[in-house]
C-alpha cells in the first residue's frame, strides 16, 4: 500500500461521467483526492474540469458513477445537503447583503445562532475584518475574491471547491492570491479542489494535479512528476514547454534504449522513462526533453571537447535568440526538428551564440523522456486545433 492510498480519502469519484445531450463532457473517470490535500484539476477550457467540479458540489447530476465525501456516498444528495462549498469564478456574492451577511449566510442556513465570532475570525483570516459592513459592489475584484473565499471556508466544509477563482484578477494580484490561498489552505487544513487552466498556477499551489483533456484525465501526479515525466504529449506540452523529436528504437545499451532520429542522430533514453508500447527495434517513439535541461555549445567549442562524453548531442543552427532577463531562449534549427527550444541561464553568456551560429545541443540522457510514437506532436500546444469537446 502506498502512502497516498493509506490516507483517508477526501473525495472519491468512481466511474463518474456527464453527458449533455449528445455531447460527452466528462468520460467515465475515477479520481481520489486525499483528505487535506491541495488538488488541482488542470486543463484547457471545455475539457470537463468545471463539470467534474460541479458534480462534486451537486450542482450537476452525473450521468453515471458515484461521488463520495470521506466514506459517505452523496451522489443523490442535493447541493445544500453536502458538506462542500464552492468559490465561484464570478464570486457570486449576494449583492443585496453586506460582507458580514454574505459570510454568515451558510452558517445561518444551518441554524447556527451566534455567527459573529466565526465570521469575524474568517474575515480576519482573509484580511478583510475592516470591511464587514460594505456591500459587494463597493469592493475591488481582489477583495470580492477574498469574501467569496471567506464565505466558503467559514463553514469548514469537508471539501472546498475553487472554480478558476483567480481568473478575473490581474497578474500581480493573481500571484499574491496564489500564495495567500496556499497559506490559508495550510492554516485551515481543508481539502481544496482547484480547477484552473493556468498550469503555472496549478504547479505553484497544488500537491497533486490531474491533467484533463477532452473529458478524460490524461495524467495524475505531483507537479514534479508531471513535469519531469509526462505520460503524454498533451501533458508534455501543456505543462511548460517540451521539445519532442520523432525517433525510432535502434537497440539497447544497458538500462538505456538507443534511438535514431533523422537518420544519423543517435540518442539515449532510459528504458524506465519510455512509455512506448514496446521496446522492440523499429518501434516509433517521441523523444522529449525540457528546454532548460539542454545546454548549448558553439561548434568550435564542442570540437575542442567542451561537451563531456555520454551526453546526447544534436547539431544545429541558431535561428532566434530572445533575451528574457534571467534566461535567454534560443530557437535552434536541427535535422531532427526545425525549432528546438533551449533556455540558457544568463550566467556566462557566450557572445558567439547569435542567430546563424553553428551549435551543438547536449544534455544528460537521464533527462530524456519517451512517449508513444503515435501521439500528436502538437497536442496541448497553441497550434493544437483542439480535440476537446466543449462543455456548455
Amino acid at each position, binding site marked *: 500500500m502506498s502512502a497516498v492510498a493509506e490516507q483517508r480519502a477526501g473525495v472519491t469519484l468512481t466511474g463518474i461521467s456527464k453527458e449533455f445531450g449528445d455531447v460527452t463532457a466528462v468520460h467515465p473517470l475515477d479520481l481520489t483526492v486525499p483528505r487535506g490535500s491541495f488538488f488541482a484539476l488542470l486543463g484547457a477550457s471545455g475539457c470537463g474540469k468545471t463539470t467534474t467540479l460541479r458534480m462534486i458540489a451537486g450542482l450537476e447530476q452525473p450521468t453515471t458513477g458515484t461521488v463520495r465525501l470521506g466514506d459517505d456516498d452523496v451522489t443523490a444528495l442535493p*447541493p445544500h445537503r453536502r458538506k462542500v462549498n464552492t468559490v465561484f469564478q464570478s464570486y457570486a456574492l449576494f449583492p443585496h447583503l453586506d460582507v458580514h451577511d454574505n459570510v454568515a449566510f451558510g452558517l445561518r442556513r444551518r441554524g447556527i445562532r451566534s455567527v459573529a465570532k466565526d465570521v469575524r475570525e474568517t474575515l480576519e483570516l482573509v484580511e478583510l475584518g475592516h470591511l464587514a459592513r460594505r456591500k459587494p459592489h463597493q469592493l475591488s475584484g481582489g477583495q470580492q475574491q477574498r469574501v467569496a473565499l471567506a464565505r466558503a471556508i467559514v463553514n469548514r466544509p469537508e471539501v472546498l471547491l475553487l472554480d478558476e477563482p483567480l481568473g478575473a484578477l490581474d497578474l500581480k494580484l493573481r500571484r499574491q492570491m496564489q500564495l495567500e490561498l496556499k497559506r490559508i489552505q495550510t492554516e485551515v487544513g481543508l481539502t481544496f479542489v482547484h480547477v484552473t487552466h493556468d498550469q503555472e498556477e496549478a504547479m505553484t499551489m497544488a500537491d497533486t494535479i490531474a491533467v484533463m483533456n477532452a473529458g478524460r484525465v490524461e495524467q495524475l501526479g505531483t507537479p514534479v512528476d508531471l513535469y519531469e515525466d509526462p505520460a503524454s504529449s498533451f501533458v508534455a506540452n501543456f505543462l511548460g514547454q517540451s521539445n519532442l523529436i520523432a525517433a525510432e528504437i535502434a537497440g539497447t545499451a544497458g538500462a538505456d534504449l538507443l534511438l535514431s532520429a533523422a537518420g544519423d542522430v543517435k540518442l539515449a533514453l532510459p528504458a524506465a522513462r519510455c512509455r512506448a508500447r514496446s521496446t522492440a527495434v523499429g518501434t516509433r517513439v517521441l523523444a522529449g526533453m525540457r528546454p532548460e535541461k539542454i545546454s548549448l555549445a558553439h561548434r568550435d567549442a564542442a570540437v575542442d571537447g567542451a561537451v563531456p562524453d555520454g551526453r546526447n548531442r544534436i547539431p544545429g543552427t541558431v535561428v532566434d535568440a530572445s533575451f528574457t532577463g534571467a534566461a535567454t531562449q534560443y530557437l535552434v534549427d536541427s535535422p531532427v526538428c526545425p525549432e528546438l527550444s533551449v533556455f540558457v541561464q544568463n550566467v556566462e553568456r557566450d557572445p558567439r551564440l547569435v542567430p546563424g551560429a553553428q551549435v551543438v545541443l547536449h544534455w544528460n540522457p537521464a533527462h530524456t523522456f519517451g512517449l508513444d510514437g503515435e501521439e500528436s506532436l502538437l497536442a496541448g500546444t497553441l497550434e493544437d486545433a483542439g480535440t476537446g469537446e466543449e462543455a456548455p
Partner: protein
Amino acid sequence: MRWLRRHLVVIAGTLALVYLLLPNVVVLVFSFNDPAGRYNYTWQSFSTDAWSDPCGVAGMCDSVGLSLRIALTATVAATVIGTLAAFALARHRFRGRAAGNSLIFLPMAMPEVVMAASLGTLFLNMRIEFGVTTILIAHIMFCLSFVVVAVKARVASMDPKLEEAARDLYAGPLQTFLRVTLPLAAPGIAAGAMLSFAISLDDFIITQFNAGPSTVTFPMYVWGASQRGIPVQVNVIGTAMFVAALALVVAGQVVGARRRSRA
C-alpha cells in the same frame, strides 16, 4: 446663439416638463376656486371650502374608497400571479412558452375599448353578475401584463450563479427563493405592483363596460359628474393623488440617496 446651443437640452427638458405638468397645475389651482355656477371652469375667487370638506359631495368619497379597494386588491392579486408567471416564462422551457410570451403583451397592445366590450360580452354570456367581481377580474387581467413584463426583465438579468451559490451554502429550495431570489427580484416586483396600482386606479373604459349599476369607481364618478357640473372636490382629490404620488417619488429618491451615501 452659443448660449442657446449650450442650454438647448435644459430648455427642451423644461418645456417637456411644463407640457406634462400644466394640467396638474390647473387642477391644483381650480381646487381653490369658488365657482359661481355648476361649472368649475372659470376662476372666481380663492376659497378653501372644498379642501376643508372634501367629502361634502354625495357619493364621491365612496367612489374613491371603492377605487382604492379595487386597485389594492387587483394589485396584490396581479403581483402574486404575475410574479409566478414571470418566473415560469423566464426560467423554464415548456410547451406554449413562446405563445404565452406573446399573449401576455396582448392586453397592453389591444385597444382598451375592444377588450372592454369583449369582456362585457363574456361576462354577460356566462351570466356573471356585473359588479365588483367583474371589475376585479378585468383589472387583474390587464395588470398581469405589466407585472409579468417588469418582473421578467428583472429575472432575466439575474445571475443564476447566485442561486447556485445559495444552494451550495446550505439553503434548500424554499430558503434559496426567500433569501436570494425574491430579494433580487424585488425591484421588478415593486415596479410591476406600482404600475398595476396606478393603472387600475385610473382605468375608466374597461371599468365602465364591466361595472354593475351600483358600483361607481372614482373615474366613473368624475365622468358622471362632468355631465352635470364637476364639483370642486374632484379637483381636491385629484390634487391629493398627485401630491401623494410626488411625495412617494421624493421619499424614494431620498432613501435611495441616503443608502448610497451611507454605504
